[in-house]
């Protein structure tokens, strides 16, 4: 079989398939720039992000600051930006799928809200505010009954969970959460004695 030929044919098919899918979902079909999704037959051994990244430098600055506040360095692992979470967030919200496009809307609006709120309170953008000012805004968002909560909680929760997904799915994140594995073993030993003791099964 001529694999090169298949690849070209497949990729053309994917572009067509995608724009049809997007129009059907009421999404902009990216008429001028061809945007590809992952495709139905990607090379699984090679990570390729075929879509352009959409967040601006200013947005990315806020993403980095916010991500590191949400997931700071501690004794179990580094901060979010040390394992590429900001780039992952950009990769995620730029993807040409309905869920991710929905997240883009929430995250864009949320990032803009943070700047507006920070300007209003501290006369500077969120990323440039002092650490205690940055957390003051987040603390208002997580407090019941505040305007900040009304306006930005959806964003807060979404951003936190996407950042956590991006963080804990890296080897450094495994260590931080306590995942041990993905390594070949000759025998499966079952849970070790300290686990059995913890569970009252010893």
């Amino acid at each position, binding site marked *: 079989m001529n694999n090169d030929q298949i690849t070209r044919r497949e990729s053309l*098919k994917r572009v067509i398939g995608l724009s049809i899918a997007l129009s059907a979902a009421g999404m902009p079909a990216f008429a001028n720039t061809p945007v590809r*999704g*992952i495709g139905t037959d990607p090379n699984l051994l090679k990570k390729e992000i075929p879509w352009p990244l959409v967040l601006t430098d200013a947005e990315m600055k806020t993403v980095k600051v916010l991500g590191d506040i949400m997931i*700071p360095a501690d004794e179990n692992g580094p901060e979010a930006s040390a394992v590429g979470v900001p780039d*992952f967030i950009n990769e995620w919200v730029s993807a040409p799928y309905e869920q991710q496009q929905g997240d883009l809307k929430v995250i864009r609006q949320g990032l803009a809200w943070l700047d507006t709120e920070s300007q209003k309170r501290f006369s500077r953008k969120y990323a440039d505010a002092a650490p205690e000012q940055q957390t003051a805004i987040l603390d208002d968002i997580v407090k019941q009954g505040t305007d900040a909560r009304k306006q930005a909680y959806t964003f807060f929760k979404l951003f936190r969970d996407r950042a*956590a997904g991006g963080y*804990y799915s890296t080897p450094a994140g495994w260590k931080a959460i306590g*995942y041990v594995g993905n390594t070949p073993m000759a025998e499966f030993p079952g*849970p070790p004695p300290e686990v059995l003791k913890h569970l009252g099964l010893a």
Partner: protein
Amino acid sequence: MPLITPRKSATNYDVIVVGSGAGGGMAAYVLTQQGLRVLMLEAGRNYEPPSETAMFQNNSDAPLRGTPTPDKPFGFFDATVNGGWKVPGEPYMIQRKGSQAWEEASDWEARKTNQSFMWWRPRMLGGRNNHWGRISLRMGPYDFKPKSRDGLGLDWPFEYKDMEPWYDKTEALVGVYGDNQGLENTPDSLNGTLQPPPKPRAHEMLIRRGAQRIGIPVIPSHMAILTKPINGRAACFYATPCGRGCAIGANFQSTTVLLPPAMATGKLDIMTDAMVREVTLGKDGKATGVLYIDKQTGKEERAVARVVVLAASGCESARILLNSKSNLFPNGLANGSGKVGRYLMDSVGSNLGGHIPALENCPPHNADGTSSMHVYTPWWLYQEQLAGKLGFARGYHIEIGGGRHMPEMGVSVKDGNIYGKKFKDEARRYYGSSVSFSGRGEMIPNDDCYCEIDPEKKDKWGIPVLRFHWKWSDHEKKQAVHMQQTFAAIIEAMGGKPGRPETDPEKAIMGGGTVIHEVGTTCMGENPMNSVLNQWAQAWEVPNVFVTDGGPFVSNADKNPTLSIMALCMRSCTYLAEEMRKGNIG
């Protein structure tokens, strides 16, 4: 897999096998071992597990951390090529909740579907057998004679004891771990055949303790995964998910276990990207071969053989028969009974999870294991059910989930109001403290569940497509509610907090097709008036046409169908080879 070059079929095949998964792979294996010359036609592309499988890649090696997308609905690394709930350019027709109109299936998330039916198809050598769940449960004596036992559904044209030796042979070839417990309608395997089951994980031990407190058995699962090497295949190394496929052949896939020895006989030609449209018929009323579309050229081609074995999957084989119209068979080949497409069945599915405080803050340890469950619960209420105490007629088994998996996008904590160090501490505390239960139950065939050819719609190759009619009966819906109650009871017996068990039968049951156990549509039987195939999976009306996928099933026990598809195929193809040798077929 090496393919025939040039892409041209020979003129002296004994058998054409359509499809390359559990049924097609096993057919090619058996027939070539018997010395027959076989052409295998696969609608998808060639696929090479040793070089294409992502084994140790972690989720950050994938776009979007491997998360499911409409392009790869079971996640980036899932061993499904060019397919899933939709296949590009190859639609099927469904009805949406609240509408009578027929439309193209478009949903890609089974849990959110409003479609009357979901149909999972890949387009690759080995088909769904590359990513399947590897759960390998034998059907038992009750399962072959359900109508005789409770008056519902249909009986198979043979008994468990007729199938037993074929299960023995299939398990020996496939390699299945598990053990023999002697439980009711949960057959033991031939002594010495099963591989040692792996030790249970921490959450599985807790589940076993909790379930046993309320009288529910939890025993080693039966999985098509090697724990000891056999036939030159390595044993599992207890890492990486089986759904990605297995580059070392430790779990069972047609592409790693059945096709290589079939190729080694020198009797097998494989052509991929060959989409069969119809079975061709001679003037004598016997099949002469097939018409297929060469997807690389878009041209219609013809292949000839003495016998045609359809193993394109339940529904897809029915589609081929229904599209094979002639003066002799105006309603589709071998469809004088009108039963082609009828008695479509899936498994009943219902899931519930819960939180187990005892699993919080568990010391980190490796719980990968074989990636699949190490223990499960077989149906345990046969007698209560027969006595009419349950309000539904058939049983289910319980598949167990949970544990300390490689983290995916779903990592989060319950408290939505925390961030920073506190969030990280909570994530660590709660990681691995959830368990989940999936019921997989028997559906009784009914007149409202079937597929037929859509009168208008064609796929991009010009082949008329299927449309699906679907309606669960009360037996299935009540069973799903029972599952919810049982799962909640087990979680509570573990000292945990279940999610809200669903009491509305319509919501408790997952949609038709979503468990991907669709069988039926070319049913076997004892009478040509009301069945398509005889007990050898041979078409009553066209003796040189066989069907060896899930199509011949006349009941769909709670035992996942793949093992039975293969055992049944082995039985049918051994018969076919003998009859050809005797000159009775072809």
